[in-house]
């Protein structure tokens, strides 16, 4: 009897483990087209910047490789890709996003293109606080067919957890003003953009990207 219990415990343990780690995964997104296309390589285009911060595009673009490569995809070298567009007279992200997918496929040889739009980037000042927020959206497109394989969005801020210490109203105002000065420098936003990029482009999240062929989790979703 006890032996049986032991065996059962041994069998159930991994199950608990699996459930524990894999929970909250409602499969709402329709991955049919994504799974059929099986992209191996991703060309990330220079992001479209709808924020007032001129450096936002560079900041986000420099940080897209990590999550996509760790998800198991080959990511075309973004610095070099930007250079190729420049050499061909393309310096405006909106123009680049409007290029025919087949043309991009021909030059870069990538299976899929990632079209990123920056909705928010930088510090927002409110009466009592200032917060750096970066919000990004993305669309993955099959470059051979033009089919949309996946869309997603993500946000990050330097104020997550809402840890506002005491100090009364005046203390809060001063703290907010000081924070605003610090937050005004671009590099305060850059790490926040890194977090937003990881949230947007990592595999294994709810409705996130699927793992790519270079990940050992490829095909498990």
């Amino acid at each position, binding site marked *: 009897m006890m032996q049986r219990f032991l065996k059962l415990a041994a069998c159930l*343990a991994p199950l608990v483990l699996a459930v524990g780690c894999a929970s909250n995964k409602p499969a709402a997104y329709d991955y049919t087209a994504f799974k059929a296309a099986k992209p191996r390589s991703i060309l990330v285009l220079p992001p479209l910047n709808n924020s007032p911060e001129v450096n936002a595009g560079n900041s986000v673009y420099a940080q897209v*490789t990590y999550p996509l490569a*760790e998800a198991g995809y080959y990511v075309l*070298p*973004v610095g*070099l890709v930007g*250079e190729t567009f420049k050499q061909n007279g393309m310096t405006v992200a909106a123009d680049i996003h409007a290029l025919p997918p087949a043309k991009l496929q021909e030059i870069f*040889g990538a299976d899929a293109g990632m079209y990123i739009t920056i909705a928010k980037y930088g510090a927002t000042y409110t009466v009592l606080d200032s917060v750096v927020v970066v919000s990004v959206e993305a669309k993955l497109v099959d470059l051979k067919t033009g089919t949309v394989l996946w869309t997603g969005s993500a946000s990050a801020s330097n104020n997550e957890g809402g840890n506002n210490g005491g100090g009364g109203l005046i203390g809060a105002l001063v703290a907010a003003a000081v924070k605003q000065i610090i937050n005004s420098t671009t590099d305060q936003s850059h790490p926040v953009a890194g977090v937003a990029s990881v949230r947007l482009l990592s595999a294994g999240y709810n409705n996130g990207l699927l793992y790519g062929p270079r990940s050992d989790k490829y095909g498990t979703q």
Partner: protein
Amino acid sequence: MQITIIKRAGMVLALAGAAFLTGCASPPKTLYGWDGYQPQVYQHFKGESPDQQIAEMEKSLQTISARGASVPPGFHAHLGMLYSITGKQDQMVTQFEDEKKLFPESAAYMDFLLAKVKKGEKI
């Protein structure tokens, strides 16, 4: 007898619990070593000195290989581009070939660039 079995059962559960904690809490091992690549790409976008970026990336290459980690996608290609900007065409070609070797997915683009270089055009 009963007590030892119960103890053993407790042990199994404790181990399962430990495995559970480790499974979820330990940072997952990354596929690549990320020393320097993204920060250097950012420096490039900001128009900083390519010589400084080359020095940083060459140092990163050593760190990555010393740790036995893999070089991430795009690293060799980016370094090759920096060499090209500073007029070191031979070293650029070597880096583009390395990128192709590690990532055959890059072959079409690397060949496109190498063909431009052969024709004497800018990459």
